[in-house]
């Protein structure tokens, strides 16, 4: 087998050196009842050519986003990732290394994560950021748990504008933790009324919200702080921060975000990269790994994993989280893409996205029977169709257009949202794509 360096001869020599007659001699601790002599019932080894053929056949049964006019967002956004990013993250020294437990052999990973933490801090407007979590949804759940630890209060209030998956993950994570998670109803376009009392650990809001509406949470931040609660701000489209006021500027205490938009492919939903940032005063309550600066035996600057007393491998059940493996390589991709963009690039990228969405909104508004629900938006907005959105989206796919997310997919129980369609446009959308979309939509609504 191509991946196994031992030859039959090696195996014989090694068994002899060990002093057992056969490999079975090394499995004697396995109870007889669980012992299997034969192979499991699965196909035998195959060469690259055969495996590649089989998986290409599966891949060919999907419609790749790039092969059609594409307008889907909803927490995952299709951006152009420069070729240099994928080249660099595939370098074996990055790709095939483990968590940097031996800093002298991992300065590359550590320095890039230190750069990542700095970039996330700058983008979110927060003081400190960790070295990544699984994704935005789990980062949100960790934020709620962290607020719970900090405030020792029993209630979390989730905005109805929070991504439904984030809401669900928060609920799942908290269900056995003694924290009560309350969620407001989703009401696209409407403004929400949060009641905050002295048992409120945190309020969790999103900007832009799930329906694309831009929200200034500054006033809410003031209210939260007055009530001794924390404000958690979620960002699912990190590129928006190139154009939009940052959570830090709004007074957020914790920011949980999805970083996929920078450096990472759609990947059918994973792997993505969770961003997590907060105020310096709360750093010791933070989940996840942190890279810190230090010096070596010769006084030269270097980097190490630090504050690990927060973590499970030291603190065990008292840890701030159980997370170990995170999203390191996706964080590296994020860092490289962000480094390539820089201040000028990221702000322009954001303006390009906004421009594309504005133009699309105008195009769609011109389609008979369609209303734009949003007052404001970044690169995604909600439209009301004259009929249920789900079948329309299916029809659009028939026309070869991937035309957004019908809200009914995420709110099946909400008949009042059935006609709503969530539509996104990024820098990858061409004018021709928009024309095809508008045309197909007109057809589909006939």
């Amino acid at each position, binding site marked *: 087998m191509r991946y196994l360096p031992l030859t039959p001869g090696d195996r014989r020599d090694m068994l002899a050196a060990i002093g057992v007659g056969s490999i079975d001699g090394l499995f004697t601790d396995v109870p007889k009842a669980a012992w299997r002599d034969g192979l499991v019932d699965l196909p035998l080894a195959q060469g690259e050519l055969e495996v590649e053929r089989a998986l290409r056949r599966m891949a060919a049964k999907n419609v790749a986003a790039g092969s059609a006019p594409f307008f889907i967002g909803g927490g995952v956004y299709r951006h152009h990732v420069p070729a240099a990013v994928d080249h660099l993250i595939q370098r074996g020294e990055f790709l095939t290394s483990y968590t940097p437990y031996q800093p002298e052999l991992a300065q590359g990973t550590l320095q890039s994560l230190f750069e990542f933490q700095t970039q996330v801090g700058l983008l979110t407007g927060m003081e400190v950021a960790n070295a990544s979590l699984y994704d935005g949804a789990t980062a949100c759940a960790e934020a709620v748990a962290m607020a719970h630890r900090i405030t020792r209060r029993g209630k979390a209030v989730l905005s109805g504008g929070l991504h439904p998956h984030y809401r669900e993950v928060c609920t799942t994570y908290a269900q056995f933790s*003694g924290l009560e998670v309350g969620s407001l109803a989703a009401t696209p376009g409407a403004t929400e009324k949060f009641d905050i009392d002295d048992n409120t650990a945190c309020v969790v809001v999103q900007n832009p919200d799930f329906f694309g509406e831009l929200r200034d949470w500054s006033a809410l931040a003031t209210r939260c702080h007055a009530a001794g609660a924390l404000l958690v701000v979620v960002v699912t489209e990190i590129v928006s921060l190139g154009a939009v006021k940052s959570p830090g500027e709004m007074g957020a205490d914790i920011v949980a975000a999805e970083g996929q938009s920078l450096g990472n492919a759609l990947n059918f939903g994973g792997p993505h990269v969770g961003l997590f940032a907060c105020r310096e005063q709360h750093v010791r309550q933070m989940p996840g790994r942190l890279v810190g600066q230090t010096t070596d035996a010769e006084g030269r600057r270097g980097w190490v994993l630090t504050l690990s007393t927060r973590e499970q491998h030291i603190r065990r059940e008292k840890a701030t989280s159980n997370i170990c493996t995170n999203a390191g390589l996706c964080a590296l991709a994020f860092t490289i893409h962000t480094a390539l963009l820089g201040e000028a690039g990221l702000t322009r990228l954001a303006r390009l996205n906004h421009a594309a969405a504005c133009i699309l909104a105008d195009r769609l508004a011109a389609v008979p029977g369609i209303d734009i629900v949003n007052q404001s938006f970044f690169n995604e907005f909600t439209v009301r169709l004259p009929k249920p959105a789900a079948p329309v989206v299916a029809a659009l796919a028939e026309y070869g257009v991937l035309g957004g997310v019908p809200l009914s997919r995420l709110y099946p129980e909400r008949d009042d949202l059935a006609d709503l369609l969530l539509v996104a446009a990024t820098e990858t959308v061409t004018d021709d794509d928009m024309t095809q979309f508008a045309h197909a939509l007109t057809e589909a609504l006939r």
Partner: protein
Amino acid sequence: MTGWSQALSAHPGSAGGELQTFTGNRGLQLEEPLIFEQDSPGHCGVDLPEPPAHRCRLGGLERQGPIGLPGLSEPQVVRHFTRLSQKNYAIDSGLYPLGSCTMKHNPRLNEKLARLPGFADLHPLQPEATVKGALELIDTLAHWLKTLTGMPAVALSPAAGAHGELCGMMTIRAALTAQGDPRQRILVPESAHGTNPATAAICGYAIDPIAANARGRVDLAALKAKLGPDVAALMLTNPNTCGLFEDEILEIAAAVHAAGAFFYCDGANFNAIVGRVRPADLGIDALHLNLHKTFSTPHGGGGPGSGPVALAASLAPHAPLPWVVHGDAGLALVEQAKGPAAASIGRLKGFHGQMGMFVRALSYMMSHGADGLRQVAEDAVLNANYLRVRLAGALSQSYPGACMHEVLFDDRFLKDTGVTTLDFAKALIDEGFHPMTMYFPLVVHGALLIEPTETESKASLDQFADTVNALAARARAGDGERFHAAPLLTPRRRLDETAAARKPVLRWRPQAQRKEAAE
């Protein structure tokens, strides 16, 4: 940039040769500042067109000040990260015997296939009709994992091992709650990985440690003594973190089940038994697999991973969303806790799991096949035992006898040498090897846990053994200095972790701000 400052800071007689350089570079070992220190304001490594004319809809929420990101061109960025990568050690560069981490070869075929547009350029919210191949891949992966574990169901959405633990323990709590009593305690061996107790705590359970017996396994008597109506589950790692197979596992399972508790198994060490032993045959109710260990998806310097959880029939109804089910219209996605999934614990992660890792893992499994996977386990165990005997003379094995895929030593062999486990590990770095796992598991003193994996050749193991033996001899010969000073030959020498934690510097700040922060 570095340069003069560097030259000045480096002082004569420092390691790596008397020669000091002006740049601080040393031949092919190149210094590299932070990107923030290479800022050319206004510069950009990506060319984007001017945004077309449009009516702004930002509703007055424009960002106020600048972000503060540096501007670099593409050549600078490519060089920056190339140089950083060159400061890393990796499985591509050499033996990486990090116990409990299963650092095996990562086939590039898997990278290639994971990047097929049909997989990588697929949105999780596309209409189901446009992602049939993705559902087929997920279902095929599930079939392989169910067959290898012998268990009827597998939850694929967990993003890593610890996430899988959370998934498994939550399904257990959900099942017990459905029975009317979630119970209070989780039994966890002292040798367990930190994620086990941490996970149990998140599920609202109290942790009750169980001691190991003289043979490094769970003390069955102690276990039975602790079992009771308030015990929700046992969290056991098998093979355990001492690299040993729990030979009384059937009795353990029986006792746990007799107490009405569930048997959760941490499958991080599945590499030792894949294709040879099915966890279901050991009486296990729930077990997570680390696709980024056993099934070779790259660790990427810390992640991403994927931690599917195999579940017994009693726990399957509580599996997290989404589910991929065989409907009459072929495969279908269940995304809501209704109908068949009514008892689901809910969603653990956004969307459908780590698809990119699924593709890699399936490619890996199909490449090996049933025969190759069994060989994986056998070679992994063979390599570990070969090292065990090669090192037996010089190192002190914690528990006598054969091991599974990894072998555990403690620091008795360093007694009276003044050399610590840490020193010893750092000396290995100078020799061009990544050290073994240090100080884990906690059940032995100054642990050195060595896991070579099956993708190391005999020649590689021999060179490693020769080196470790020689270093041990050197330590016993009283050459402590050489160890305290190590590493001498890396881009940075030993780094001060205490100072880093005492006054944490967690991000770069421009000089000005940094002063403020200092005040």
